[in-house]
């Protein structure tokens, strides 16, 4: 079944759906999000600075934020990180990697009741804390963390 799905996707690419998506990608994020792009937050050099710039300096810990990420990354260049929020009325999620040069990796808004779930591929040069901040409709901020270890590999068992 998965083989069929792959074939279909390849077919979709050939018939233009993926080509169209790529064309859309030609637009730079700064142009797409010109109105809302939080330059100061994305360019902050530390977690505290990024949090401050998205207004989440006082975020409180909450276990309703679910971070699914490997304990040890298989490849630090593409670490799969799945994030979701069970906190009612979550309207945005931001993901930070504390050891990255610019810790804020992404911030998404979920409008009109869209489910606050996303799957990301993040780059990490070293063992880091992945921190997720959720914002609810009433303007409150919550956070959760998970460590992802990045290792040089080899020498196993």
């Amino acid at each position, binding site marked *: 079944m998965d083989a069929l799905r*792959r074939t279909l996707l390849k077919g979709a690419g050939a018939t233009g759906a993926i080509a169209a998506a790529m064309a859309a990608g030609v637009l730079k994020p700064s142009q797409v999000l010109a109105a809302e792009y939080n330059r100061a937050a994305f360019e902050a050099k530390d977690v505290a600075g990024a949090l401050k710039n998205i207004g989440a300096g006082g975020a409180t810990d909450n276990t309703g934020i679910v971070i699914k990420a490997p304990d040890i990354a*298989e490849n630090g260049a593409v670490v*799969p990180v799945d994030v979701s929020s069970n906190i009612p009325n979550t309207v945005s999620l931001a993901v930070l990697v504390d050891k990255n040069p610019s810790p804020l990796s992404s911030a998404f808004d979920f409008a009109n009741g869209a489910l606050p779930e996303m799957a990301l591929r993040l780059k990490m040069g070293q063992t880091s804390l992945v921190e997720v901040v959720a914002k609810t409709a009433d303007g409150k901020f919550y956070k959760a963390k998970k460590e992802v*270890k990045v*290792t*040089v*590999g*080899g020498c*196993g*068992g």
Partner: protein
Amino acid sequence: MMNRREFLQILAAASAAGFALDSRTLLAAQGGEKLYDLPRFGNVSLLHFTDCHAQLMPIYFREPNVNLGIGGAQGKAPHLVGERLLKAFKVKPGSVEAHAFTHLDFAQAAKTYGKVGGFSHLATLIKRLRASRPGALLLDGGDTWQGSATALWSKGQDMVDAGKLLGVDIMTGHWEFTLGAERVKEIVEKDFAGKIEFLAQNVKTTDFGDPVFKPYVIRQMNGVPVAIIGQAFPYTPIANPRYMVPDWTMGIQDEEMQKVVTEARGKGAQIVVLLSHNGMDVDLKMASRVSGIDAILGGHTHDGVPAPSVVKNAGGRTLVMNSGSNGKFVSVLDFDVRGGKIQGFRYKLLPVFSNLLPADREMAAYIEKMRAPHQARLEEKLAVSEGLLYRRGSFNGSWDQLILDAMLEVKGAQIAFSPGFRWGTSILPGQAITFEHLLDQTAITYPYSTLTDMSGETIKMILEDVCDNLFNPDPYKQQGGDMVRVGGMSYACDPHAAIGSRIQDMRLDGKPIEANKTYKVAGWAPVAEGASGEPIWDVVSKWLRDKKVVTPRKLNEPKLLGVANNPGIA
């Protein structure tokens, strides 16, 4: 039964007289013949061996005298060695079990009791256990298709056929994957079809997360539905070359494991057993987080633990076992299941003494035929070892020291690194080292030896990184290998410290290693794609042939800080 003092006196007398005692006589004096009298218990029986590392022939295998546990693992199984292990598990000092489970008096006791394992002896034991336990399942925890010359040369085929002949029902894997994804799929889909189930709930495709193998099976055993779940070594793509399995992702995956357990229970499984290649420390943590698993039959860390660890969790309790390595042990786990509930269990980790178990004729014939074309090459005598050679130990082993010494000389290096593999058989003092023995230490699909210029800073980073894989306080962040073996330079190690601070006082010829200075470092088994170099067995066999007689090696071990009273050191 004799006591330890009497036993040692007999050994000393035998040694002085220049002959080895007949093991049958000695074992009889100790009640050793009763070792395999294991009456049937209950109605669900699982037989388990793991990490045999392709050892088809009987071998010697010395258990470690250093198996350090740090933090929550300190002082608990499997991090107990020598007398501390005997005491914790009430094993009689000087007994045949004491020899099986510890390094104590190893060389002398090994001469007396003889070799362990060997598939034809294992086959006899399995047949006996099956005869007394109708319906029993034979589980193979993996690391079966790698570890010997013949497994390497046949791309695992000798072990695939041996496993089928032995009657393995279900297996999972780790080093199997270093034959490459295509070869693994070929074996599972063709050789194993309808015979052996290869299970792994934690191996998925990198693109869509589709399962690569079946996660579990349910088998009826004497009217009881029994679920077996497979868990492959979670960190294969990190500890071994990623390019061998480029499209597969692994990891521990607790949540997925819980889903599989719940699903199996939902389908009526009354017993749920995890066939795991996590390593024992990871198994212990997983048992505390996932509920509904009755027993974890584990491997990877090669721990021969005489009794199960009982772990409490939200759903009740889970038994955690680890069945040693190299064909030296078979676990026998019996459950009495009535009215859908476990009424009781019995567990025994049986050592496989080749002299006490006659060879199974069919298996012996298969092995002889398979080896015949390779015999001359396998039996080439490279040198004689004056000292005991072994590998296991958290920091170094004399076999690894030999490899390091050979690399330093042949490669003209200042410093040498050798991976902390836990497989590899032992050589007794006075024994000849054959090419086969050397391949027991080195037979991998990426055997390249290297000589690299490294800065002091890089050397420190590598040592810290590997050390964290052993001593990170969170078992989920460990990889289950031992510390990289280091030749040429000295260092101190504080296992309790955090990453970045464990490795201290690095010195070469007494002078501190400088962060910005460059050093010539020899190594082998690089995990990066495109690596090349002379196979390590060529480097070492050259050195051995040249030496002819190898003097006892002087172990280069770090000065350990803060572990004086740790029961993981003897």
